[in-house]
């Protein structure tokens, strides 16, 4: 049961071959079995889940208001607010935070009748690429527990890969859905900026953050995207754009489709075994009738540096709210207001969060604003222009999702810069606000390799069609981690 996709489970539920309560019990039994090894969750909400499952069974019994998610278990990343249920961002500073409201996506998932299993582990405040920056505990990759699951949505990706959840949500600021999806051999989709409401998502870098699905296959990705998309008056940056039915794009056909491959992401700095897997995927697309076109993105060389100025600058402003006044941790050493701020933030934040607040504050400070922050915003324009040029002749672009497969635990944690470089292929997409998906395309050293497909703004449909076609004609998505 734990290997089934959400759309397969939906058929079993509506045909009354299984109840949601049975399914939920079944998934919790799987969690009991493997969670001590994987540690994907920071909080399990079984009691609440069984109540939701019972309510879903009523809906199915009465044949009222059944959605593709009704009765389906789902895991939620712990930076999305859940009313009355701990939302910690895997940070000490929010260890006791009980949101007084639900994030919009949580409202939508609840309204669809899904069953929330619990909250998943992440790099603290979504800052990291390995989930080692969690203040709670690390999460381990179900394919090899000596390696990281990627990050920051490492808990969500590992939960799906280990059969602990058929579906999960993630958030992606510089690759935090796609890179863990790649490392864990699952499908991760970052929608166009603004496609999904960020209301109730604890903000990291507001011009880059976007919520999206982590799933076992492309069909489930389209199904969950259908549920969570749409304009939200509570998020002034959410896009007032029509939302198509994304499942209509699940068409097994790329004949004549123009697919650009990014030259700079198949060269230096990319593991040869990863390159081989992606080259084989390109060949597959050609066999299936697509037209492969080489595109060049000279600005990509500068994307990581650009990102590590812009994202920390926005974070330094967003994280100013954690001051020990209205919620979260407050230091006991508070002789005056200033010492309360200083000590609360010293005790509450981990090292990576402190580092990024410092970089961001520096880049925005008097005397350095033009040289760093403003310069980065200008390079962001160049990156955006490179994409625009490529999309003049292609409908989608492809590249590896990450330059390597999952790395060893502890391998990069002492050297922040080497960790940052593992996001080289995903970061440009966030800077340009585009949608992109990662799906399994092979193995290197017995660890999954991810293929990234990038689309034009609001055109998730083309990338879903390209991804679905590849999936239908390969077997990578069927292979399961044996944890």
């Amino acid at each position, binding site marked *: 049961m734990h290997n089934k996709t959400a759309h397969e489970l939906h058929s079993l539920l509506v045909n009354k071959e299984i109840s949601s309560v049975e399914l939920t019990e079944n998934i919790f039994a799987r969690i009991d079995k493997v969670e001590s090894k994987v540690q994907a969750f920071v909080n399990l909400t079984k009691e609440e889940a069984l109540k939701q499952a019972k309510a879903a069974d009523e809906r199915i019994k009465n044949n009222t208001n059944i959605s593709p998610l009704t009765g389906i278990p789902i895991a939620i990343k712990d930076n999305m607010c859940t009313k009355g249920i701990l939302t910690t961002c895997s940070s000490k500073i929010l260890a006791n935070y009980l949101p*007084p409201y639900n994030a919009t996506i949580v409202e939508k998932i609840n309204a669809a009748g899904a069953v929330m299993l619990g909250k998943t582990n992440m790099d603290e405040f979504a800052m990291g690429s390995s989930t080692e920056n969690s203040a709670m505990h690390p999460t381990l990759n179900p394919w090899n527990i000596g390696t990281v699951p990627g990050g920051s949505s490492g808990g969500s990706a590992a939960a799906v890969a280990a059969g602990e959840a058929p579906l999960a949500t993630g958030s992606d600021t510089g690759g935090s859905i796609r890179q863990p999806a790649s490392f864990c051999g699952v499908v991760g989709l970052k929608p166009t900026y603004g496609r999904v409401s960020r209301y109730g998502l604890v903000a990291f870098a507001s*011009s880059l953050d976007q919520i999206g699905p982590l799933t076992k296959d492309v069909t489930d990705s389209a199904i969950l995207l259908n549920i969570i998309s749409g304009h939200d008056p509570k998020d002034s940056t959410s896009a007032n754009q029509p939302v198509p039915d994304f499942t209509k794009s699940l068409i097994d056909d790329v004949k004549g489709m123009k697919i650009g491959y990014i030259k700079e992401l198949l060269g230096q700095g990319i593991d040869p075994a990863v390159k081989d897997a992606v080259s084989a995927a390109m060949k597959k697309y050609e066999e299936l009738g697509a037209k492969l076109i080489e595109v060049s993105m000279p600005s990509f060389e500068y994307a990581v540096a650009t990102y590590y*100025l812009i994202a920390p600058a926005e974070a330094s402003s967003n994280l100013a709210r954690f001051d020990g*006044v*209205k919620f979260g941790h407050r230091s006991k050493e508070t002789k005056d207001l200033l010492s309360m701020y200083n000590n609360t933030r010293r005790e509450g934040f981990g090292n990576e969060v402190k580092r990024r607040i410092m970089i961001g504050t520096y880049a925005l400070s008097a005397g350095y604003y033009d040289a760093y922050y403003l310069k980065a*915003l200008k390079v962001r*324009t160049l990156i955006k222009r490179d994409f625009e040029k490529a999309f003049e002749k292609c409908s989608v672009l492809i590249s590896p999702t990450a330059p390597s497969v999952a790395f060893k635990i502890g391998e990069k944690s002492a050297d*922040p810069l080497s960790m*940052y470089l593992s996001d080289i292929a995903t970061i440009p997409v966030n800077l340009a606000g585009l949608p992109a998906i990662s799906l399994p395309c092979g193995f290197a050293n017995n660890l999954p390799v991810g293929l990234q497909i990038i689309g034009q703004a609001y055109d998730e449909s083309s990338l879903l069609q390209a991804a679905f076609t590849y999936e239908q004609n390969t077997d990578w998505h069927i292979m399961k981690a044996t944890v």
Partner: protein
Amino acid sequence: MSITKHDVEHVAKLARLGLSEEEKELFTKQLSDILEFADSLKKLDTKDVPPTSHAVPIKNVLREDKFIAFNDPEAILANGPDTDKHMFRVPKIME
């Protein structure tokens, strides 16, 4: 660009981050490395390039200035580290 321990102390003060001596040493080294990496951007000529603060065009979104009561104020106050009736208590601000 290399930064000094003094720079780290200044930025920590601006960011209201108390740092230990060891953290100051560590961050001086790490922030120098990261900013040196960021200096690669200086190679690019961006004289006539406008900045992009948002990838997709976004305008100010206005709504009617209307009072909407929050349905569960107690749940907000329950998160306060130190509250008094409907207020959050903070340490003394001035002598």
